[in-house]
């Protein structure tokens, strides 16, 4: 570990019943990097994200954030017999750590979703404002009796600023779901930024975008990384985007990590080509 790593996933296995969705995954994301996770459909990319963000407790393994362990589990109960993954006893005897997603977000890990999940009945501005709720200092009484007016004003100001950054000020009072697809993606990223993260997880940010929009998004992701001092870990299918901005790439296939490296290394890796094209090297 030469550089300080922000996120470290260690021997994480996620098994649903008899299906191993993520198989002994190990990866590291360093400070300030943009790291991509790619792989064919059903490779377990989103499941890996869901483990990191606390949606699922992993069946086995641990996750570290900035050096401290935030998630840890080992096969328990029914899983004890069913477990087919690796390192079955490595984490037994340790304390089980399974925080809920809101605790993970509070630590400074924010995410977006593959199928956009905006607050439907709320305006663009309110969507961002809601995410500001996390860093409040007020309690329910001070908030009801407006004793938090200063904080409220600050929240609104910060939300306005984020709107400006994602260039949505002109539609601030529109319903979030009335925006075109590309803008909804931007709004979701802005909403994640409103929780003041240090690590941003993007789940297919360019899904459904045309080449022009993808180009803008590429530029946008690079810009927010620099502006907010973020570390970015993303799942993506658009190879142009991935190859363009990733410092490092992990390739996942059938839950297993099959390759790691920069875009050049990945492009020429025979195992990756095999995973994507299906046994091309046999010819």
């Amino acid at each position, binding site marked *: 570990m030469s550089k300080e790593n922000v996120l470290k996933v260690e021997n994480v296995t996620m098994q649903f019943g008899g299906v191993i969705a993520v198989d002994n995954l190990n990866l590291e994301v360093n400070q300030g990097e943009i790291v991509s996770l790619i792989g064919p459909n059903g490779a377990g990319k989103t499941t890996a994200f869901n483990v990191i963000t606390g949606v699922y407790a992993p069946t086995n393994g641990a996750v570290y954030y900035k050096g401290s362990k935030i998630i840890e589990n080992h096969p328990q109960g029914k899983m004890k017999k069913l477990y087919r993954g690796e390192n079955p006893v490595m984490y037994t005897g340790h304390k089980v750590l399974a925080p809920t997603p809101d605790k993970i977000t509070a630590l400074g890990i924010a995410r977006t979703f593959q199928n956009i999940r905006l607050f439907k009945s709320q305006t663009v501005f309110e969507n961002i404002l*809601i995410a500001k709720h996390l860093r409040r200092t007020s309690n329910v009484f001070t908030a009801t009796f407006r004793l*938090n007016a200063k904080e409220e004003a600050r929240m609104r100001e910060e939300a306005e600023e984020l709107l400006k950054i994602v260039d949505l000020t002109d539609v601030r009072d529109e319903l979030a779901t009335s925006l075109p697809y590309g803008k909804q993606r931007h709004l979701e990223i802005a909403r994640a930024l409103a929780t003041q993260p240090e690590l941003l997880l993007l789940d297919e940010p360019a899904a459904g975008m045309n080449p022009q929009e993808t180009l803008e998004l590429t530029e946008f992701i690079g810009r927010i990384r620099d502006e907010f001092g973020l570390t970015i870990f993303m799942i993506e299918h658009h190879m142009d985007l991935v190859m363009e901005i990733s410092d490092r790439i992990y390739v996942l296939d059938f839950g297993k990590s099959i390759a790691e490296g920069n875009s050049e290394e990945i492009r020429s890796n025979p195992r990756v080509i095999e995973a994507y094209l299906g046994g091309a090297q046999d010819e």
Partner: protein
Amino acid sequence: MKKQTKIIWNVGLIAALLLLLFILEQVVPSSSMLFMVLKKGAIYALVAVSMNLLNGFTGLFSLGQAGFMLLGAYTYAILTIPVESRASVYQYFDGGIVQFAIPVPLALIAGGVVAAVFAFLIGLPVLRLKSDYLAIATLGFAEIIRAVFQWDKLGPLTNGSNLLRNFPTFQSVLYPFIVAGICIGLIVLLINSTYGRAFKAIRDDEIAAEAMGINLAHHKQLAFVISSFFAGVSGGLLAMYQTTIQASMFKSAMTYEILLIVVIGGIGSVTGSCIGSFLFIACSEWWLRFLDNSNLYIGDFHLSFMRPGFRKVVFSVIIMAIVLFYRKGLMGDREFSIEGARRFFQKHFKKKQAVEGGSSHE
């Protein structure tokens, strides 16, 4: 409109409403059905808004409202029956075990607090459930509470299945209006605060809300407890209005009435719940009364289908019609506001203004 002008308008409107009620009370005989409707309407408006906070704003489908009202009503009654009349009220239980009385406002708040404490305890296991399952669990709770309060062994406290009476009541229609108004005002303040936004986020998308750092368990519990607190207060008011209470009053049918008000008014609209409440009470208790008259004639034709209870048939048909034609309730999830009303009138009188040579659009 500026914020200040808005506040002035709203304060003026509330003052005008109270003044109107005050004048009505001087002019109209107090036995009129109007006052009955207004009093009960105000109380139901409060409980409907409290239910809306849970069902409409937080997205938790709970049917425990009657149970929490019962807790509030009983707490109020038990704490305010004057010491000297306890012997006659608790005649089968040697005057009961509570031998003191506290002032009315305190007792109303105590009613809310008791309901809130119960909500907290019930909420711990029950709020893990979602949608229909939550509704069934809370409905079950309300039914159990009702049964427990009628239990003979609790007689020294609850007077068993006998009536509680002789506690202080109100005469003026202003009383329930002011208490319910303050409570609804507090709920509106909450809804418009950062917590209210978090509640709406949970309603819209639980997964996204949690990913944005909103602690689901904590916020759901909070909404449940607050909603129950106000249901408890309205239970106390209902006790005052009814002058006597009995656990068997708080049937699940009562919860359905409140749910109906919320749905008719518009899920997610506070003003909708208030309007719905008055319309509902007026329709069910007052405006349709003439349908119960079995001696009604049009000319010489005897309307033989009219008999006591017929108004309920008509009432059900009206409800069905409303639900069919206003699928989102009267107000949807919008709120009544001065500005909204102005815009509404502007839209409808636009033609006239255009003829006069100018519209007042800013």
